[in-house]
């Protein structure tokens, strides 16, 4: 019998620890498939910070370092400048990248640091129990916005790739999702381009990926898919935001 599909070699054969309906496993899978296709597993170094996605180092079959909350783009800079011929990516959540790590991501992009960032936006702090993230939507209820996020006191959700698009050093910026088949196929292409841009020494690449967090959204995985379609995508439109490859 012909094998049609198998676990990517870039992922270890280990069950994920994630909650039901969580997207991190799917996103790991897509990144790993691309690493296999580009044959870069043995030359790749991942950088994880703090949040649900940080245990990436347990699952990917490549070298990894884990650093302080929000600091992955700085640490990745240190790795990449030392090992220019290696492929370096950061895996960061929305609290990590868009709150505490804003300075590091903006300046890595401004320098045109030749690294790739995967930015997982589930509009909440997952690991700490569902607090407001910089990407939480207006009126979204979280444990720290129990009456719903309002612009008067919490400001507005941040469009990260659109913000970074103003920087000359950022040359590939895209936003994908993993809530349905089409979005998964598109997102995989964005991930691939983001890696290829680095292999071509094209500068800084970032792919934002809208992600489901049914546990902290207080809904079923099916309802979470609907929320991505009806609430998140209208505010965070999918597609390539900047492509100077």
């Amino acid at each position, binding site marked *: 019998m012909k094998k049609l599909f198998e676990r990517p070699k870039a992922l270890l054969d280990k069950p994920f620890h994630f909650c039901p309906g969580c997207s991190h496993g799917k996103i790991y899978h897509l990144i790993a498939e691309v690493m296999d296709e580009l044959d870069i597993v043995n*030359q790749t170094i991942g950088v994880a910070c703090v949040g649900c996605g940080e245990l990436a*180092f347990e699952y990917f079959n490549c*070298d990894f*370092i884990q*650093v302080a909350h929000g600091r992955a783009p*700085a640490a990745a800079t*240190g790795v990449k*400048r030392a090992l220019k011929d290696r492929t370096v990516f950061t895996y960061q959540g929305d609290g990590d990248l868009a709150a505490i790590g804003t300075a590091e991501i*903006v300046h890595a992009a401004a320098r045109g640091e030749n690294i790739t960032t995967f930015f997982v936006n589930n509009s909440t702090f997952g690991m700490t129990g569902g607090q407001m993230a910089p990407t939480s939507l207006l009126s979204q209820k979280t444990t720290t916005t129990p009456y719903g996020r309002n612009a008067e006191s919490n400001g507005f959700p941040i469009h990260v790739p659109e913000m970074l698009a103003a920087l000359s050093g950022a040359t590939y910026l895209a936003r994908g999702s993993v809530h349905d088949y089409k979005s998964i196929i598109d997102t995989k292409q964005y991930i691939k381009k983001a890696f290829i841009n680095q292999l071509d020494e094209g500068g800084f690449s970032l792919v934002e990926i809208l992600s489901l967090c049914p546990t902290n959204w207080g809904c079923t995985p099916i309802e979470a898919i609907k929320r991505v379609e009806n609430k998140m995508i209208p505010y965070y439109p999918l597609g390539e935001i900047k492509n100077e490859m």
Partner: protein
Amino acid sequence: MTDKLLMKGNEAVAEAAVRAGCRFFYGYPITPQSEIPEYMAKRMPQVEGTFLQAESEVAAINMIYGAAATGERAMTSSSSPGISLMQEGISYLAASELPCLIVNIVRGTPGLGGIGPAQADYFQATKGGGHGDYKTIVLAPGSVQEMADHVALAFDLAFKYRNPALILGDGILGQMMEPVTFPKLCDKVPAPEWAVRGKSCGEKKVIHSCYLANDDVENLVHHLFAKYDAIEKNEKRWEAYQLEDAEYVITAFGTTARIVKTAIERLRQEGIKVGLIRPITLWPFPEEPFVTMRSKVKSFLCVEMSMGQMVEDVERVVGIEVPVHFYGRTGGNVPEIDKIVEKVKQMIK
């Protein structure tokens, strides 16, 4: 470039680092240490090294984390407020057992303070500084020559024990010029086996400090402390100066020890037998000379450019039977020779 030069302490640190095989410098400007990044900006391209001015000290120390994880000799430098910003990263470096060099050219604080010389970061440097159970190796040079020599020593110790090493200087050591002799330029040091450099270099490697089980964190800390025990056993360094016949012992480190030596000269001219213990490693703290001298002398005097921080370590070792006196200036001011002489004479009364 010749091997003997007249240089500022800050420049000597930078040149010594290059000669010790350091090829990665990440930092952020702050007085009174900006000559270090400025020198590196010029020097690193000459040796195919990397100089990068980071967006903050927070970013700089994490760039060091990344470079150190690849097994390379990497360093940063800053001054007190900037070193405070690096403490998160230093805790992570210690937990992940990553070697690197951090140079603190201390200025008079708390808060923003001023740019005058100080030693008030002693607690921060020797007692941890950031969160958690960890230690960093701390060297205290007393001359421009030692500023240079301690750089190579700090890298060697950092890599021997896989631990961050600090050089605690001050604004005077950083700014003053003295002749300094350098060793020959050292080639890039090969990366150690534990380095994360991609699987093409061997098995999958991970460097992290994230443990979900309490026991795993405790095991890590026990492992670190076994290493710290070895450092305490093997690496204590100090200078003993005119201790043979001393009835009074002054203790001071760095710039302050130089001032104390002049005071000792003057006191000895008056027939007062005074010696100096100059700790060179601030952590591990050199207990031995204090243990030896505590049964021989009438009292100790600790002189510092702070309100008295090392004095707590001296008291810890000397105990309650022999008095430990203190004289210090702070905020960027320097202890005066006359005042040290006067203080010793008061102790005699």
